[in-house]
């Protein structure tokens, strides 16, 4: 009977515990944050559980890319809200951070103090530091290729870097200055990304 099949399974209320557990799993098994986590959230929620449809997922992406905060976190909160309202959002946020917080506490509180002075750990960190620099630079180059398009954006980046170097303002001021500059240098009809 088609009428019965039209009723989506989302009609059955998803429990807060189920939401917590899914996001606990997503938080516990994804490394690298943001761009690495989004495909996993999509796989888990859109394809496997069908809690969210593809269009909502894409709409949500537009929101989280313009919002502050970790993208994986925002994505989790939005999905939680869609499934069970405000409490769903809170539970999703707590679920997605629970495992990472525990892992960090175990490492920082128990393991690292025991081995911090060990020569092998010192040697590993000697190599980890340049690896972090490589990760930051590669992420910046990727992000830059996507964002810094057209000569006005290039000038804006250079101008704000110089401003920051010479006057050392708080980074929040540089961010706001960039936003204001965007309002001034891009005219109506230019807001669409090329």
């Amino acid at each position, binding site marked *: 009977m088609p009428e019965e099949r039209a009723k989506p399974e989302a009609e059955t209320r998803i429990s807060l515990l189920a939401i917590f557990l899914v996001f606990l799993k997503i938080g516990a098994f994804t490394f690298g944050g943001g761009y690495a986590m989004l495909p996993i959230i999509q796989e888990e929620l859109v394809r496997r559980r069908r809690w969210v449809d593809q269009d909502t997922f894409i709409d949500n992406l537009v929101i989280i890319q313009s919002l502050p905060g970790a993208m994986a976190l925002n994505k989790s909160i939005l999905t939680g809200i869609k499934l069970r309202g405000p409490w769903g959002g809170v539970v999703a946020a707590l679920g997605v951070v629970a495992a990472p917080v525990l892992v*960090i506490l175990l490492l920082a509180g128990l393991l690292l103090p025991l081995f911090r002075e060990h020569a092998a750990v010192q040697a590993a960190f000697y190599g980890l530091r340049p690896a972090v620099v490589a990760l930051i630079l590669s992420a*910046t180059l990727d992000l830059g290729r996507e964002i810094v398009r057209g000569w006005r954006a290039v000038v804006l980046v250079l101008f704000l870097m110089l401003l920051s170097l010479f006057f050392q303002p708080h980074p929040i001021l540089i961010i706001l200055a960039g936003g204001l500059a965007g309002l001034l240098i891009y005219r109506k009809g230019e807001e669409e990304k090329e």
Partner: protein
Amino acid sequence: MSLLLTLYWIFFKIGLFTFGGGYAMLPLMEAEIIARQGWLTHPEFIDIIAVAEATPGPVAINSATYVGFQVAGIPGSLLATLGVISPSLLLLLVLGPFLLRWIKDPRVQRFTRGLRPAVIALILLAAISLGRAALVDWSTLIIAAGLLGLRLLRRTSPLITIALGALLGLLLYPY
């Protein structure tokens, strides 16, 4: 108590102004935690980011938890984590229904279009000051250049990059 409140407030600010994913919080953390509060040195900060990369979860949240722990133990780690996720929760819970329409407003779009180059400028500057603390000799310079090349040309994942960094550290550690 006031230390815990300060931690919460600092990470609330960091969460509120982190636009464009994980690394966007680096310049904010550098300004607040290293320069202003003097809670950490640059090498300590890089070590925290390295651990945050190597453990599951978003890097911004992992590093908030770790910095909070360094500053004020377990209560510090919990408050820093809550601080960094609070702005997202508040914005989405309170403004959620209006956000999609609001974000598509032309003025907001032009504002975010200018905001992103600012974030790039700030991350580049943070990368330079972290680089100064991390690249202390030829070996570290070669590790950074090699891993950057691998990442850009072969698309090695962040986790593999971190693992290779630790391995190369073990092989090349001069002391």
